[in-house]
């Protein structure tokens, strides 16, 4: 084999691919998709419509209690967000809102302070909301906060996107009767209204949600959940069951995920879950990479054969050089695409982390950048690509059209589907019988071994499966090279299975 000839063929293949629209579309698809997703997410969030509701409360008290419940939940969410902010002096804040939030952050520094703040804020907000009033000259942080909450609801919803204010707003109309509310719905000023029966504690019969849009039940479910909690609490009270007892009665048992550590165990955090899932993402990436790049290789080989180029090339280079150059050049082009994808993903992840950190979030991307994963990915990509490349090249050399190639490809596609289907079974039980057996089947080895890296098997398994895979790659290149050599100048229809042995003999 001549390294110079291989290099020249590889250079041409790489450049020819790099100059195609398909290459740039492929390379930029992921970055564009990420940018579009981010932009679309922001856009849809910005244009998200807020549903309005009214309540016809025949009980006279349940809706007020539900309002308090909703305010309390929203306040918990908002104060969680504020508590995650890094403390900064209100004097350093860039605007009035930032200054207020900084002041609140200081005011809820301890658990006791936060509880007192939340109780007082809830009371103030409830009062101001039900009376549509304002605090004339708020001086305390809690007063300013409550006043801002009821006077600038859009800003509150914008600052605390997970509160109910971001999705639902109560409309308090001048007249609270069904006819008027129906008219408001007809005029598109109201999305729906709830009818609370006279005694929902005794029976929920008669509770209704009136709306034109019967397919969207989100608001009904949200308000119903709050109301149910209020009613259930009242029922418990009437049965003389205090809140603590009720909570204890309703408490469910859930197991906390943990990892073994020495004699004990360590609670699993987000990073541990990410480490568990990262190999699955890498297996999908490996599968897409191998499949996509080998398709490029197949198309290029068929093009060369059908374009009558093979013969003139073979008068200059050997079949082995030609095939090796194609595999290297197209593999390089494919790797360039994958590298752009990975770089984009890492850049987005880091940018996302930066944004989260500024918002007070805390997340560890370390597991994704685990060197073992990256080295494993590169090694298994190279071995897996070469294993399939030889076969795809051989198939391409026998076919004059992509249609011919597709029929010969069918068995290979079926083989490639197996690791795709094994991803979740192997992830659930990385050292189970299925995973262990599949690891030793060379066409599956790259995918299954990468899949098992969340709970890696022993070094001997890695070494053994890698040696077997490398041997299979060598054998595959040898057989594929033989078929390529004898097939590339062949004319007419692709050979039948019976004719394949004669192609191997030459």
């Amino acid at each position, binding site marked *: 084999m001549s390294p110079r*000839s291989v290099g*020249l*063929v590889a250079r*041409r293949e790489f450049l*020819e691919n790099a*100059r*195609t629209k398909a290459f740039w579309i492929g390379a930029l698809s992921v970055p564009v998709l990420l940018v579009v997703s981010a932009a679309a997410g922001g856009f849809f969030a910005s244009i998200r419509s807020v549903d309005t509701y009214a309540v016809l409360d025949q009980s006279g008290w349940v809706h007020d209690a539900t309002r308090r419940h909703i305010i309390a939940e929203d306040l918990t969410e908002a104060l969680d967000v504020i508590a995650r902010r890094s403390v900064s002096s209100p004097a350093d804040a860039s605007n009035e809102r930032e200054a207020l939030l900084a002041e609140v952050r200081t005011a809820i520094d301890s658990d006791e302070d936060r509880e007192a703040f939340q109780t007082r804020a809830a009371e103030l907000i409830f009062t101001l909301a039900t009376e549509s009033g304002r605090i004339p000259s708020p001086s305390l942080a809690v007063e300013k906060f409550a006043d801002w909450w009821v006077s600038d609801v859009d800003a509150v919803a914008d600052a605390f996107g997970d509160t109910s204010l971001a999705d639902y707003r109560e409309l308090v109309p001048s007249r609270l009767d069904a006819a008027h509310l129906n008219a408001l719905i007809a005029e598109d000023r109201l999305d729906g209204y709830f009818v609370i029966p006279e005694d929902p504690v005794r029976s929920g019969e008669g509770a209704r949600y009136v709306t034109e849009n019967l397919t969207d039940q989100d608001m009904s479910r949200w308000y119903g959940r709050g109301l149910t909690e209020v009613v259930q609490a009242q029922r418990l009270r009437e049965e003389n069951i205090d809140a603590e007892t009720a909570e204890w009665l309703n408490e469910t048992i859930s197991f906390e995920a943990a990892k073994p550590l020495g004699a004990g165990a360590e609670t699993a955090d987000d990073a541990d879950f990410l480490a568990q899932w990262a190999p699955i993402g890498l297996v999908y990436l490996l599968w897409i990479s191998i499949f996509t790049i080998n398709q490029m290789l197949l198309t290029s080989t068929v093009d060369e054969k059908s*374009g*009558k*180029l093979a*013969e*003139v*090339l*073979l*008068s*200059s*280079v*050997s079949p082995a050089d030609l095939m090796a150059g194609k595999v290297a050049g197209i593999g390089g082009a494919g790797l360039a695409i994958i590298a752009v994808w990975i770089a984009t993903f890492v850049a987005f992840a880091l940018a996302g982390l930066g944004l989260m950190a500024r918002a007070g979030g805390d997340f560890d991307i370390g597991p994704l950048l685990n060197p073992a994963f990256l080295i494993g990915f590169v090694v298994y990509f190279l071995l897996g690509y070469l294993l399939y490349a030889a076969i795809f090249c051989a198939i391409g050399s026998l076919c004059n059209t992509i249609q011919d190639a597709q029929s010969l490809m069918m068995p290979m596609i079926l083989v490639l589907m197996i690791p795709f289907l094994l991803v979740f079974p192997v992830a659930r039980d990385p050292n189970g019988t299925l995973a262990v057996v599949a690891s030793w089947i060379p066409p599956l080895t790259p995918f299954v071994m990468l899949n098992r890296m969340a709970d890696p098997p022993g070094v001997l398994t890695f070494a053994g499966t890698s040696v077997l895979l490398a041997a299979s790659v060598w054998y595959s290149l040898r057989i594929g090279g033989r078929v390529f050599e*004898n097939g590339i*100048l*062949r*004319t*007419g*229809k692709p050979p039948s299975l019976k004719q394949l042995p*004669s192609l191997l003999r*030459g």
Partner: protein
Amino acid sequence: MGNAIATAASVQDLSRSFGDVQAVEELSLAVPQGTIFGIIGPNGAGKTTTIRILMGILAADAGTINVLGESDPRRIKSRLGYLPEEKGLYKKMQVGELVAWFGELKGMSRRDATDAARKLLAEFDLESRWRDKCDSLSKGMGQKVQIAATLVHDPELVVLDEPFSGLDPINVEMVRDAMLALKARGRTVILCTHIMEQAEQICDALALINRGRVVLDGTLAELTGSGDTLTVEYDGAGADFGGLPGVGRVNDAGNVAELSLSADADPQAILQELLQRVTVRRFDTTTTSLHEVFVRAVREKGDDPMVEGEGEAA
């Protein structure tokens, strides 16, 4: 041909089969150095298989090969140039880039290959298409680019398989001039064709192949001889040439006929007889055409020209 003449390439008892098809069988020929040598024969005769073996693309089942002094042509690919019958270009490559790349494949440095490509494309009136993509070329232009890619590294032995197919008369002349220029520089050219008239015009020596064997070889003069054929041009579409004295085979093309003469034939007597049958416009004693030589040789051996089959690599 005498052994005193240096040979650029030769094969002895060459055989090659594809499955049940015997493409070449005990074929021997020698290509004199510095000549244009024709390998002539119908489709499927074994020409392409023979030259693929000479170019080191295919291996022979049996026989010996010598190309520019080497028994294995794969070792000297950089000294050989090959334009196959089935021609193709990388459609998305630029013309200049493609020709230079083939020069690099033949061992030239990138700079030398680029310079040589520029010079050769200028000779073929294609300099202005240097940056054009190959898929923008007409068929004739594409073929000239392929010939340029074959010659860019100035090979010592060039094999051109049907180089004139698809070319207009002006480009045919241009390619013919290029072949003559190669010969003038001492290079050896093997021209493979099934069109006998082309070979007759340009080749110094030829081998006629049928069914994988050489049926005749020698210089053009040795093969066509002199004065044993009458060419008759006449009015009308076909005529009765039966029973003419001293005339053997007749190759009647409609208004031109070639009449093979026996040793004791009298052209005057034949002319007198012909004048009673048709209006003769031309009556000429000529050498035998290659076509006629080929047909006679095949008939003498009791063969028919074979037709290429599907599925074989030949």
